[in-house]
């Protein structure tokens, strides 16, 4: 469940059947003030969210002013970079490229991540430069952003690590429970596509087929790239890297979807098959597996990769032109590897 803030002025809704043709200028001014940190009425993150959802023109300029301002805190600048990644226009990309010389690690990592979401081949060069010069978290974010771009564009880029057999979590038979994967109806598919309008990661998502995954209280949706559903698409995976789809999670309160995982594929180096790597949008590898392609049909098997907080999962089936035939889908409710422990704050001595 989640708690939202109601803006103190008219909100242009993210999902609406009504075309907004006459934006309220007063609201725009207030919104711009809030984005710039000059409004006590609305937080900056909320202002950026509303700006993003609005159809106000040149919204990248307000975010640019925040991102390029060294006087702002790194967190606020990073936030502006991430929202630019959602604005997803050539102008927004240019601003992000301009900001790729930022010195702060948090800002630089956010710029790389945003370019990974919306970038083109030029952006890949920029992200690669960030990768060469950065270290720590910014380097990790740049590496994943570059890999994401190289998969989406099917060009040379950093390799993503494929797990060994020991890296997979074993599913304990006594705790395994089946979960459902089924094709969704057109209304839910439309809602999902609308929710993800600013989170498409540079691919066109197919309206059909779309698959809902239900596990415990959570519902996910598998959306495939249009490139992954045309006749013969499966065969192409043997020779090309791809961003084959997105897995989105549904918010129980808002009922909207947001992107959770990215489905990346690459011709396997160890076998004749195809490696499937399912990463969190921030880069962590969560699930992985292989696919064997025979003609237009491919059989696949996926499992969960060992990491703190991971829970065992196994999924197997086949796919042909985007249509799934699930053979087995089982998971557990419990985290299999001990969680990481938060560190106690140093106690400040009371006077």
């Amino acid at each position: 469940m989640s708690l939202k803030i109601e803006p103190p002025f008219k909100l242009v809704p993210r999902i609406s059947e009504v075309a907004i043709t006459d934006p309220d200028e007063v609201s725009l001014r207030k919104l711009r003030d809030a984005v710039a940190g000059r409004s006590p009425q609305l937080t900056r993150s909320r202002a950026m969210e509303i700006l993003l959802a609005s159809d106000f023109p040149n919204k990248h300029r307000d975010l640019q002013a925040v991102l390029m301002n060294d006087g702002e805190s790194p967190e606020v600048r990073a936030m502006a970079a991430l929202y630019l990644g959602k604005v997803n226009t050539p102008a927004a990309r240019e601003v992000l490229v301009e900001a790729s010389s930022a010195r702060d690690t948090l800002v630089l990592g956010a710029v790389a991540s945003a370019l990974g979401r919306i970038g083109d081949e030029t952006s890949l060069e920029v992200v690669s430069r960030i990768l060469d010069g950065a270290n720590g978290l910014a380097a990790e974010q740049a590496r994943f952003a570059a890999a994401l771009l190289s998969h989406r564009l099917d060009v040379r880029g950093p390799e993503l690590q494929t797990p060994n057999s020991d890296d997979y979590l074993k599913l304990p038979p006594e705790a395994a429970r089946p979960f459902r994967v089924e094709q969704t109806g057109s209304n839910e598919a439309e809602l999902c596509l609308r929710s993800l309008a600013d989170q498409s990661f540079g691919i066109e998502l197919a309206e059909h087929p779309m698959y809902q995954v239900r596990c415990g209280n959570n519902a996910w949706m598998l959306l495939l790239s249009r490139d992954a559903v045309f006749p013969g698409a499966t065969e192409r995976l043997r020779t090309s890297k791809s961003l084959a789809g997105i897995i989105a999670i549904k918010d129980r309160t808002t009922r909207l979807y947001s992107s959770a995982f990215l489905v990346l594929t690459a011709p396997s180096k160890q076998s004749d098959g195809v490696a499937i790597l399912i990463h969190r949008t921030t880069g962590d590898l969560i699930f992985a597996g292989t696919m064997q392609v025979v003609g237009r049909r491919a059989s696949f098997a996926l499992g969960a990769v060992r990491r703190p907080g991971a829970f065992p999962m196994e999924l197997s089936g086949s796919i042909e032109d985007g249509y799934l035939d699930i053979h087995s889908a089982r998971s557990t409710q419990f985290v299999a590897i001990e969680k990481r422990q938060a560190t106690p704050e140093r106690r400040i001595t009371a006077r």
Partner: protein
Amino acid sequence: MTSLRHVATCIGLSGKISIVRDFYGYVTGAPKKLSLANQVRLLQGNHIHLNLIRTTRPFQPDVQKQIDQALQFMRDAYATVNMGVGRIQRFFVNQGGYEIIVDQDVALDLTNSWSGPGDGIDIFLVFLIVGPAIGMSPVDGSCDKDSKQSGSVIGVLDSYPNLGTTLAHEVGHYLGLEHEDDLPDNLMYPSAPNGGKLYGGQGGVMKLHCSVKPGC
């Protein structure tokens, strides 16, 4: 103050204790005039403990002050249904990447992969959550720290000036409360600011949660 020592020990405090810092858990001083007798009375009834876990660089003093005020807001709201808020412990996540929650799933990852020790409810304080949410929590959250989603996530920057509402609201979810869509005055109304009120029935639900301690 024999009963104070007894209550302090009961909530896990030992050694030399500062009333404001340790007994209440405020690091920037008392947010308002405090009634020690009232706090002791509340801890003699059902109460909870909290682990505040930041995922960001150390908070600036003004943000720390907001957090202390939020804790006091929560204490006041929960006191109306005779639920105490006891020990507050502070921690941090020593790995980057959780400062800004880009997608909802990253919040789930945070509560699936990290935890604080002991019997305090884990509250992860992130800088912000991108999207409409300012806080997230499972309803009737687990008391097993090794289970999925064992904690709530709150965007500190998002929530200001409603951080107290957000904190009390998300912990309310964790303790089993659902949204009250038709009661704008209620703490569990799904938008902030709201009236911050709790009614007796909600207190009854909260007190049944596994993380709620019996009276000291």
